[in-house]
């Protein structure tokens, strides 16, 4: 007898035959505060920062936002921060979200995972693997990144609790000077986690502080690896890297022209910051692209405001000469969000990321040493040759 019930994987598109919902997924930064104090972080404020805590969205306001998101069709919510578990009302918000029939993706450092929280995730599963960021397998390494004594044991204990309660999770790393000797050990250790069916993802491109804290930004810039080292890390598993690049270039190669947003920002998704501003995507914080949810709804932002943001065009002549004509745009980290973090404009090429993209393209044989990506009339032929090679 055939089944009346069909299983669907919500990550497979085509859930909706006729019309897609206005909002399919939403990120919420529950707080910018964090119990760790990682030097490379673009957002963290001290856990005890009272001014930040008082500005944060109230529980009720977050519930209103979630309610509206569900009514617009949202099926996925990502809770990120800062450290989302720092909020005393996390459990309340989490259960509220799940009872709306929304899957939850939680980004956490696992330090605050208590036996109680692990039980909660085991009984009411988030329906998405929790993503835990880990900065090292040794106390000295880990705490030289987090700058908090005791954070290593606490994170390890949190991970242990998730394992014991069989809560699905994956771990992610960061490529920092402190832990560069540990990648192999980290990856070997990660294979013991039941849901790790591929090597951990790494953060490699450190973004500047959204609050433009110059002192911290200087420190972040210093952490950035030279492009050759980035390439060495990317090509540690060379065949996989080449395969990934081929399938990427097959789909996403095209100079973007003067349209600033060639990405998925604001397309049935968005991101709410800790203070109630609705952003087209998680990283984009340029004031002119934010929608104040104290003055309007998600729906108004999605139907009236974001479409105008999506239409924005580049004006900077350097951008028009370079990025607008660049066939590497798809692999380059430069985008309106990153441009704003680096230069306070939406349309400035970011030299560090430009160098990284060029280094990759030269390694892949798409550019010669003396060539620049915006001066390549035969880029389509080169891509075709690369993809079929």
């Amino acid at each position, binding site marked *: 007898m055939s089944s009346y*019930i*069909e*299983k669907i994987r919500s990550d497979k598109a085509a859930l*909706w035959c006729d019309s897609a919902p206005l909002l399919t997924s939403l990120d919420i930064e529950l707080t910018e505060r964090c119990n760790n104090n990682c030097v490379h972080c673009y957002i963290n404020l001290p856990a005890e920062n009272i001014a930040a805590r008082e500005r944060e969205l109230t529980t009720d306001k977050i519930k209103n936002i979630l309610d509206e998101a569900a009514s617009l*069709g949202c099926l996925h919510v990502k809770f990120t921060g800062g450290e989302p578990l720092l909020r005393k009302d996390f459990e309340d918000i989490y259960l509220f979200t799940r009872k709306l*029939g929304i*899957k939850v993706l939680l980004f956490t450092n696992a330090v605050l995972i208590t036996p109680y929280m692990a039980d909660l995730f085991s009984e009411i*599963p988030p329906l998405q693997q929790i993503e835990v960021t880990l900065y090292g397998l040794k106390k000295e390494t880990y705490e030289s990144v987090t700058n908090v004594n005791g954070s290593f044991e606490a994170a390890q204990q949190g991970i242990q609790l998730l394992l014991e309660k069989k809560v699905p999770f994956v771990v992610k790393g960061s490529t920092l000077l402190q832990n560069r000797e540990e990648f192999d050990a980290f990856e070997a250790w990660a294979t013991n986690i039941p849901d790790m069916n591929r090597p951990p993802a790494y953060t490699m491109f450190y973004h500047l502080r959204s609050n433009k804290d110059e002192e911290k930004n200087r420190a972040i810039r210093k952490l950035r690896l030279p492009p050759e080292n980035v390439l060495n890390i990317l090509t540690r598993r060379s065949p996989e890297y080449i395969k990934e690049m081929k399938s990427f270039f097959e789909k996403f190669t095209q100079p973007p022209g003067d349209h600033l947003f060639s990405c998925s920002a604001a397309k049935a998704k968005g991101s709410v910051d800790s203070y109630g501003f609705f952003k087209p995507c998680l990283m984009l914080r340029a004031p002119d692209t934010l929608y104040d949810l104290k003055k309007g709804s998600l729906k108004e932002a999605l139907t009236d405001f974001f479409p105008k943001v999506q239409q924005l065009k580049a004006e900077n002549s350097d951008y028009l000469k370079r990025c607008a004509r660049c066939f590497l745009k798809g692999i380059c980290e430069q985008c309106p969000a990153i441009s704003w973090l680096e230069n306070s404009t939406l349309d400035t090429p970011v030299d560090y990321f430009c160098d990284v993209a060029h280094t990759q393209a030269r390694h892949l044989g798409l550019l010669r040493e003396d060539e620049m990506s915006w001066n390549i009339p035969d880029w389509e032929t080169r891509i075709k040759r690369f993809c079929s090679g």
Partner: protein
Amino acid sequence: MKSDAVYAPSDDIVARNIEGELIIVPLAAGVGDMEDELFTLNETGRAIWDELDGKKTITEIVQNLSVEYDGEEGEIEADVIGIAAELLKRRMIVAVT
């Protein structure tokens, strides 16, 4: 399954209507085989699901659907019992006493 049994959606799931599609989202652990699974019902299942409201008995549901849809009452009854059994096994509905 008794013909006077009454069933309602269980608290272990959340049933959502998104753009006209019924999406059943597990709430409690163990409803899906995999932790990230969602469910939907085929057309027959959907019509029956809408009747499983915690008030109507299986017999009443069969009668209602026989008025609404063409088809032998026996076939409709088999569908109603089939889907109710499957939903019950998956903890998506519960018996109301």
